[in-house]
């Protein structure tokens, strides 16, 4: 039987930094033997001197702790998901405070304490602390996503507050990554925020993205979007994208190998066709909707829930309050993820930006 084994953050150095590995066995005991053979150092963690499963290691099969099933003789079937989770002090996966804080989501059968542990172990990078990044960050933080990286190079402007709910009026003039960090700490002290006060470029994107499991794009320009798309594909990390325009929003998830943003839109609108791009404006609730969709897709990917918004582009029209989808697919001719790729490293993205440099005011990474 081939099953998927979830490896928690503290053990990942023993599995080549992989959060999921394949395992085999008719029962949990077989699977543990299989893991010991293939990952000997992990194997040491999975048995005590007597060769038994240590009391502080909990094994979950499809979110059910094996002591509530048949212990190590619990049978496995193809496609089962097994989680190997070390208890924290006190013998639990979660502290009593965490159990209470996340009660409403832990009670969801597909989440449970093991799912909550996955959320707490997850590392998500949010690029842009603006109109899209704010609601995404707030919901990811509230759900207990344990590590949130936030990239933004801007200082807060009074005109941002109409939509950027990570920040507050007294924060005007401060770097957005600072106010974002404070806001998130007040929502949920479980969350470690890593501020990246920088503009993401081809020179730094790879190193920043390498520290995270997946990336939420909350940017307002094509240069950064294509950069993120390429960097995530090359790093093998899912990219969750969102965009808004006036009364309309788009969202999509790009999982490496299943099509990328370039497959959807091979080129951005040309630079300089509009001599003086102007703000079109929007109501803050629009990036609110799209940013929350990005957050939900991120939670689904971490928890392995449902069907990701992949292979399709979601289009939201706020005026008619309609959600529509069109299909997206991997383009064999895609220069990044096609059959004969020509993009093998990050290149020059400024040249493909929609806005001429003169029009790129301080908001460059502040979505929406």
């Amino acid at each position, binding site marked *: 039987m081939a099953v998927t084994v979830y490896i928690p953050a503290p053990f990942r150095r023993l599995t080549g930094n992989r959060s999921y590995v394949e395992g085999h066995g008719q029962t949990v005991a077989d699977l543990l033997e299989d893991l010991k053979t293939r990952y000997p150092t992990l194997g040491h963690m999975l048995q005590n001197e007597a060769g038994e499963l240590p009391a502080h290691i909990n094994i979950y099969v499809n979110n059910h702790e094996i002591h509530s099933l048949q212990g190590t003789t619990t049978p496995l079937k193809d496609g089962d998901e097994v989680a190997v989770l070390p208890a924290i002090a006190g013998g639990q996966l979660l502290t009593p405070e965490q159990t209470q804080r996340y009660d409403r989501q832990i009670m969801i059968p597909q989440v449970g304490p093991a799912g909550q542990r996955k959320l707490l172990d997850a590392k998500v990078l949010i690029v842009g602390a*603006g*109109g*899209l990044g704010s609601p995404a960050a707030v919901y990811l933080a509230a759900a207990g996503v344990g590590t949130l990286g936030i990239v933004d190079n801007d200082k807060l402007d009074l005109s941002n507050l109409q939509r950027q709910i990570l920040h507050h009026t007294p924060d005007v003039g401060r770097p957005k990554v600072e106010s974002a960090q404070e806001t998130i700490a007040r929502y949920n002290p479980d969350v470690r925020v890593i501020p990246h006060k920088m503009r993401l470029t081809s020179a730094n994107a790879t190193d920043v993205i390498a520290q995270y499991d997946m990336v939420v794009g*909350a*940017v*307002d*320009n*094509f240069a950064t*979007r294509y950069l993120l798309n390429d960097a995530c594909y090359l790093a093998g990390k899912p990219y969750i994208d*969102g*965009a*808004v*325009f*006036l*009364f*309309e*929003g*788009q969202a999509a998830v790009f999982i490496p190998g299943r099509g990328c943003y370039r497959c*959807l*839109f*091979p*080129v*951005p*609108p*040309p630079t300089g*066709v*509009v001599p003086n*791009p*102007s*703000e*079109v*404006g*929007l109501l803050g609730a629009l*990036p609110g909707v799209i940013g929350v969709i990005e957050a939900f897709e991120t939670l689904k990917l971490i928890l392995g829930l449902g069907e990701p918004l992949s292979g399709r*582009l979601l*289009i939201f*029209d706020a*005026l*008619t309050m309609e959600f*529509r*989808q*069109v*299909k*997206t*697919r991997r*383009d064999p001719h895609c220069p990044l993820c096609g059959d004969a790729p020509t993009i093998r490293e990050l290149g020059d993205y400024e040249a493909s930006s*929609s*806005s001429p440099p003169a029009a790129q005011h301080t*908001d460059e990474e*502040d*979505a*929406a």
Partner: protein
Amino acid sequence: MRVIVRIPTPLRKLTADQDSVPADGASLSECITSLEASYPGLKERLCDESGEIRRFVNIYVNGEDVRFLQGLATTLKDSDEVSIVPAVAGGGRKAWP
């Protein structure tokens, strides 16, 4: 063939703010010609000087990207839904030439 064309927000100023409009044609190409007759200026937003669909604009017939069908030659039948979907930068800035 009478089809319904979904108009994205950035182009609605050309369609008197209508989010969907009817058009006629046995192919996507004919459909665009019909659109241009009713809403002058729309065609140049969708197609370049050589008449090809602009690369930063996607057109879908019943949710399928015509780049993976027959492009402008994609055939249409009654009550098909044609969707025009531009790449959106985000940030509420203009992103359409």
